[in-house]
């Protein structure tokens, strides 16, 4: 549900009518496996010994269904020993191939689960493609890269000016000997009266470069090799392939439900119009009334609940790239979460801490969001704050404009929620309420944010009494008076109205 409007009336009415059809549909399951579910199951059960695209302890499982029948796989996974005991040739062959190491049995997995697993393995893994390209590179270049990142990257980039000039193909501009002398001790070089050395010094406003006497000539050559090497542009297949694959079976289930619902509905209509059986009519009426009531209530209870709300943001900020790929801590940007009731949308100067030196995106891209797209999004920060990325300075007298983000989690004004209480005191991870944000390309509301949702958690969550001086006295009293060692948030008064409504 990605829209500018939060939840349209139309959506509600569709929910209302579809809810009825879903109700009729209970028990009817789709035959196709669900790859999303399958992925979860794979990670939980199989990933310890299997990978999709490579042999681990067990064989690679990508497209295993192409090699084995569905029935065989179900039998194997549930109890491979039993299957082998039946004398199945394939089963025996595998056993021998892996030096007589038997696979664990998984009797707990249902047939549906295994269908899901197979659906997941049938999706073509994409990451493999990207990883293969980087392999065949001169080892000196790789070493040079390491040296460059350890010594030079603080001030230089390959393609763009940072504190010092861009260094890509610097060997084309300067001689090797000159570079050796310059890098080892540029001050000494300048002292000899070298014209180039002086020119650079002046170009950068008399800011001298550090000297690197510790680098050997060979090291420098390696670095030069790295700067001269053009990394091939990684051709990465769209990541979204997986996502679009996932979407399909879901829609088909929806349509199946619709069709079955319509069939049932027409059956009821038929009963009314054609049947003479009074009892059947009464049953149909009761069924219809309860169905409508159930669906109606279900729909009304959904009013104001915006789970999966995913508004279009002014900057398409990807939490996946920041928190997922680059593993930036949530609270680096949302720094007030530990101090304040609000988690804080980071101000642009926080973005600039990194984006001063990261002006372009070099990570994996998808078909609809290429490098140019992400670079354009980064440019939006610069436009807002007035950063001149060519000269690496803030533009003078620039009229800065704040970014008008769209609020995703909109808690009602009459409910008081304090992030620091949950983050600092209770030590709850952000993902508990916000979901796997590190996997979200665009953030959406993960939980319902209803009072029932709050209360369920308060009823089940134990207060961390240990190690917090505030609770010492309370803990003593509780254990002395009631012999209680553990209390839930609710028992501590966390269900009282006024704790959140004032």
């Amino acid at each position, binding site marked *: 549900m990605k829209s500018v409007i939060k939840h349209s009336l139309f959506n509600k009415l569709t929910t209302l009518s579809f809810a009825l059809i879903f109700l009729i549909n209970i028990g009817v399951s789709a035959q196709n496996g669900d790859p999303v579910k399958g992925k979860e199951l794979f990670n939980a059960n199989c990933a310890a010994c299997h990978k999709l695209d490579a042999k681990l302890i067990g064989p690679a499982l990508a497209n295993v269904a192409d090699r084995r029948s569905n029935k065989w796989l179900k039998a194997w996974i549930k109890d491979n020993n039993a299957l082998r005991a039946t004398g199945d040739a394939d089963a025996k062959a595998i056993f021998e191939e892996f030096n007589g190491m038997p696979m664990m049995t998984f009797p707990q997995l249902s047939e549906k689960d295994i269908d899901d697993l197979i659906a997941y393995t049938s999706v073509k893994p994409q990451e493999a493609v990207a990883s293969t390209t980087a392999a065949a590179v001169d080892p000196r270049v790789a070493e040079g890269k390491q040296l460059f990142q350890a010594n030079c990257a603080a001030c230089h980039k390959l393609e763009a000016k940072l504190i010092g000039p861009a260094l890509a193909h610097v060997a084309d501009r300067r001689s090797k000997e000159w570079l050796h002398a310059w890098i080892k001790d540029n001050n000494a070089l300048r002292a000899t009266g070298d014209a180039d050395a002086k020119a650079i010094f002046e170009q950068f406003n008399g800011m001298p470069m550090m000297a690197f006497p510790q680098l050997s000539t060979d090291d420098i050559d390696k670095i030069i090799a790295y700067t001269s090497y053009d990394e091939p542009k990684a051709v990465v297949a769209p990541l979204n392939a997986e996502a679009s694959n996932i979407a399909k079976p879901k829609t088909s289930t929806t349509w199946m439900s619709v069709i079955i619902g319509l069939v049932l509905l027409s059956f009821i209509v038929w009963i009314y119009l054609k049947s003479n059986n009074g009892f059947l009519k009464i049953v149909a009426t009761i069924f219809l009334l309860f169905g409508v009531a159930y669906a109606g209530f279900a729909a009304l209870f959904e009013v104001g609940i915006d789970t999966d709300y995913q508004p279009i943001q002014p900057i398409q900020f990807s939490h996946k790239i920041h928190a997922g790929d680059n593993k930036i801590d949530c609270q680096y940007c949302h720094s007030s979460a530990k*101090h304040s009731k609000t988690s804080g949308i980071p101000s642009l100067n926080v973005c600039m801490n990194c984006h001063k030196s990261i002006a372009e995106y070099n990570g994996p891209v998808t078909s609809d969001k290429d490098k140019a797209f992400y670079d354009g999004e980064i440019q939006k920060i610069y436009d*807002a704050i007035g950063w001149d990325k060519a000269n690496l300075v803030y533009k003078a007298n620039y009229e800065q404009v704040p970014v008008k*983000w769209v609020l995703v989690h909109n808690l009602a004004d009459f409910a008081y929620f304090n992030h620091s209480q949950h983050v600092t005191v209770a030590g709850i991870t952000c993902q508990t309420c916000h979901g796997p944000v590190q996997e979200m390309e665009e953030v959406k509301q993960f939980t319902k944010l209803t009072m029932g949702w709050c209360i369920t958690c308060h009823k089940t969550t134990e207060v961390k009494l240990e190690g*917090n001086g505030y609770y010492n006295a309370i803990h003593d009293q509780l254990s002395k008076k009631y012999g209680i060692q553990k209390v839930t948030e609710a028992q501590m008064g966390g269900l009282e*109205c006024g704790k959140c409504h004032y």
Partner: protein
Amino acid sequence: MASNKKYWRSVEELKSDNSLVEHLGQKEFLEEIPTETFLGAKENLSNSSTSRRDFLKYVGFTTVAASLAACEGPVLKTIPYVVKPENIIPGVANFYASSMSDGDGFANILVKVREGRPIKIEPNKMAGNWGASSARVQASVLSLYDNNRLRGPLADGKETDWSSLDKKAIDTLNTLKANNEKIVVLSGSTASPTSKKVIAEFAQSFGNVQHVVYDALSESPALDAFETMYGQRALPNYKFENAKLIVSIGADFLGDWQGGQYSAAYAKGRIPVKGNMSKHLQIESNLSLSGANADLRIPVKPSEQIFALINLYNAVTGSNFASKPTPADAAIKKIAIQLKKAGSQAVVITGIQNKEAQILANALNEALQSEVYDLTAPRLIKAGNDVAVKNLVDEMAAGKIGALLIYNANPSYSLPNASVFNEALKKVKFLVCFSMSDDETAQKSQFVAATPHYLESWGDTQFQAAKFGLMQPTINPLFNTRQFEESLLTWMGQNKTYYQALRDYWTTSILNGSSWNQALHDGVFNGNNELKLTKNSIDVATSAAALLSQTKSGDFELNLYAKISMGDGKQANNPWLQELPDPITRTSWDNYITISAADAKKLGLENFNVSNGALNGSKVNLKVKEVVLNEVPVYIQPGQANGSIGLALGYGRSAGMQTEMMTGLNAFALLQDFNPFQTVSVEKVAGIHEFACVQLQHTIMGRDEIIKETTLDDFINKPKNEWNKTPEFSLNHEEVSAERVDLWEKFDDTVGPHFNLSIDLATCTGCAACIVACHAENNVPVVGKREIRVSRDMHWLRIDRYYTSDMTNEKAKEEGIFGTGEMFNTMTIPSENPQVAFQPVMCQHCNHAPCETVCPVAATSHSRQGQNHMAYNRCIGTRYCANNCPYKVRRFNWFKYANNNEFDFNMNNDLGKMVLNPDVVVRSRGVMEKCTMCLQKTQLSILTAKKEGRPVKDEEFQTACSSACPTGAMVFGDVNDKQSEVALITEDERAFHLLAEVGTKPNVFYHLKVRNTEAS
């Protein structure tokens, strides 16, 4: 026995045949819902074009439409800073130390700032007594967001820019300097040393410059007297905490007398620790706040105050100065004996605005060798000079003034001869008014230099020679304004900001090597400066003779005064102050004359309550010399001296403000020769005035023994049961204390904090700082005069004012007049000079709350922390809770008070809304609200402690009212913490619960009032 006294809040209650009071005793709302008018007439109903079917259709349609319309959720933007200031964390408040010193309020304060917006004023505890806040100091934060403030400088009423104003000013001032024409800076008192220095430098740079200080509420006579006696223009300091006996003749020292800020010191001596409580005697005409707190109050006419002062001087010193007899003479003889007995621990003060009277009082204190009368650290707060102002007006009229720069004063409004002044203004060649609003003076000025509010300004204060304070900006200037001092610096060509000037001056002359940053952080700095006094010999006899000759008596004498809410009218556009009920008259949105019942009868004036409980009154014309004030409302005030009339200044502002706030009449015209005592003639005129008076409201179901008091004598010498008896009930055929009888199971409140609020009626002066603090902290709406009239005030905290006399049921039985009209008449007679008691009442947070049991939707519920919660979003507005509350503390939102043009106060404009506390919900129409015991503050204290992993410190638990209380009468804290201040006083002998016999087990408790009335 004192505790059996009859209390009343309105004279109406004393009339035996008053059906209205009886009705109010039984019902909270006087008017029934008029169902009869539209349901009673059958034929109307049947003839209606809307049939029952249609009605149901409409209901169905509107319900569906409303539900469907609600389906669309709002899309909200969340906009972060571009560059976040380092010290701001959104959602966390910062506190900055600053000072308020505008001539009408002097205090060192802390300013609570949220996301760069000041939202609350708190007292600065480091400043001692100067840190105490008052109603006006508390309310000043709203004046920052006054929608009628000037947005920028004006030239001839049109917008201009600073550079053209500067150019014009510099040219003109230099021309004037070349011609040696006189330039005058007319400013109100600011007590700012740096400001004085900048003006002095300005004077130096332009030659013929005079600085005239003008205060609308002037203390000029006291300053003159002090100057004559000690050679310095200052005010004596009084250490009331050391006093055993305080005799005040017309000095409302708990109000605005000599700049105020004495209540904290006074209260320290009023805590009735056994045998150690000061005695306070007041001789006055109006029933002032100080008079209401006095142990003995003697009402006399204004002229008699003067005679009483001379008589008292004679009686104490044995002199024999000529005087006249007064009704208080017998008492004065006794007082003189007590004074002599108390000796150096006694003090005599007077509010008579006459230099000779002030000399007499000072001389009397010297004769007593009073230690309360403190000459070591005189006060430098008020500096207005009436003579200089008079001369200035004369000079202006004679065309001798080249330029006039007016700052922090509004003489066109507040001068007694404002019309003369306004005419004279036209003869001034260059006139600049430095003002925050386009007020009366600004409208008549050529140029108006818009000034920032003090919360946007740099500045400093010197309240006493060694007591310095700093003022710092807590918000970026909202508008295109510039500080007065900065304008002067610009015009004299000094190329520096006022901040630089301030810092330079502090470094060179005040700090003495101490850290500027530390001083700025603390907001106060104790220097080692001294004010050298030279003692001049004075001839008291001459003074006494002069005083007598200057005194005129009349049939009616006027005593002008200032209210604790409105002061001199600077903050008249502040709705919180307009709505604040006067502590004595309990009337808001008005000024009026106060007159005694006897005089009112004589003149045929009356007050009466109309059917909905609102108060109406007659009107009179007042005439002082040639000046007539027409149609002044009349309020009959018990305790008003016969032959005297009180009238509040500060009302009747008419420019630079919202129409809703233009209330009352301007009485400054009657303040002739700056003297608040005037002989006056009163003439009744036709017409009825409608008051917004809350005194009959929130009745307590006839349980009028809600307040308790005793005398110091009984308190010391008799067992508790005689003066503070807890009601008893029969349980199992045994009389037990009502506290022990319980229908309900006890709530387990022993784990975690359990909050109690204690209110000491002995030290509560009724100053109302708590009411305004509650307004600010809890987003309490202002409802306006019309709504107050119909009992719909929204104050979560009210201060009930009770009058009492000596007539009791017992006494009446003894005299055989019990239940007769005579008894009620006898009760009415002492109402000429009743004793007064104040009692702040807010939600009592009952452990067995009657409101909770009747709520059909469980919107109000109890918490283990002792607070009675109110979930607004759950409330459906049945008002059962309000009906079942024995204390009548619940308030119903009859309207949506925010964003509503019908209630065009601060919650109806974007600027005014900036003062709202973002941690507290703004309530909507149709829900009940009440005091939460500042739940948001207690929760925050707990959370802070949890985050830091430590127990909460006692002083961290505060409510808005307890924190604002200047006298420390309100103590708030956790009773489960046995070491907390509040836990220690729960067992005090004076402690009692309101209506303990009801068995509500409140978490608010009181300490009964003790009057020091033992025989001398």
